[in-house]
């Protein structure tokens, strides 16, 4: 005897993600889910973005790491509120973890919430968190083959930030190849080549982020 079940296995996460998305929409908050390998420069990029946009938008951050609150400390030094989630070994954040963390943020005074996911190019892509957009950060030191090797992650990205372009010339990395491969997977993806260290290319990223957020409520 065969019986039909039709049970969504990630249903609990999907429901929590939908609730998060509804919460962000009610408060007119843009929520970004930032995904990358460890060491791509997410936190530096985020710190620089907060400082660069401090007169235009108010940003809060949820940090995900296996251990320590080092990244949340770095973000707080910019003056922005940051909540650290320690996953104790889990390789991705879940929507329920995010909904608990959001309660600790001063959401009445925020325009954007950035969720810096656990450093991992695989698992975070499978878990919706209620974000408005996904930002994948790829640094030049990692190599230009990542869109081809991790197509699921890049196909679902709304934005790809190619970071550490100040290292071009010291590493074998073809920016045009990454742009071509990422757009081949997803023609609508926005791509910015930036250096969080020198600031190169960040103005376009800032302007795009502000345009994505829309006018302050």
């Amino acid at each position, binding site marked *: *005897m*065969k019986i*039909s079940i*039709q049970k969504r296995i990630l249903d609990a996460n999907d429901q929590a993600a939908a609730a998060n998305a509804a919460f962000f929409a009610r408060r007119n908050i843009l929520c970004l889910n930032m995904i990358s390998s460890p060491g791509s420069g997410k936190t530096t990029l985020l710190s620089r973005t907060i400082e660069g946009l401090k007169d235009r938008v108010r940003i809060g951050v949820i940090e995900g790491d296996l251990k320590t609150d080092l990244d949340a400390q770095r973000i707080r030094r910019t003056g922005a509120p940051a909540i650290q989630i320690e996953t104790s070994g889990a390789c991705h954040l879940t929507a329920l973890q995010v909904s608990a963390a959001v309660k600790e943020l001063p959401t009445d005074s925020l325009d954007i919430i950035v969720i810096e996911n656990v450093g991992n190019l695989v698992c975070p*892509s*499978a878990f919706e968190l209620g974000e408005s957009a996904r930002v994948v950060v790829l640094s030049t030191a990692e190599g230009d083959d990542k869109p081809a090797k991790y197509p*699921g992650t890049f*196909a679902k990205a709304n934005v790809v930030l190619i970071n550490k372009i100040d290292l071009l010339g010291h590493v074998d990395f073809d920016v045009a190849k990454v742009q071509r491969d990422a757009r081949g997977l997803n*023609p*609508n993806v926005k791509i910015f080549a930036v250096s969080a260290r020198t600031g190169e290319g960040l103005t376009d990223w800032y302007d795009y982020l502000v345009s994505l957020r829309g006018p302050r409520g």
Partner: protein
Amino acid sequence: MDELEVAQTVFETICAEAEKVKLVPVAATLSCGDMCAVNTEALLEAFASLCEGTPCRGMRLEVRRIPVQMRCIACNTTADYNIAAPHCVKCGSHEFDFLPEPPVLLEDIEFKDK
């Protein structure tokens, strides 16, 4: 992805359904989008180890990968997304949107008849 987490939910669902019908499960079908970060081998290994020593021991779990669908912006054709040739199968346009990815879904369970 955390395949053990997926396997655990599948296993618990099968056990609950088996309890309801008072029958022994012999097979089940799970489907997911083909870009979903579920590794089939790791999932099957995790599932088999959860089944050890339970009435589910030895049952088959079939994992079906479902192509993600894309919709051409130019001609509105909907088709399977082919990662090796990401363009419209009808007009050749490279401008397309993704349709929502199929969820990780436990489709059915087969039980041994009494």
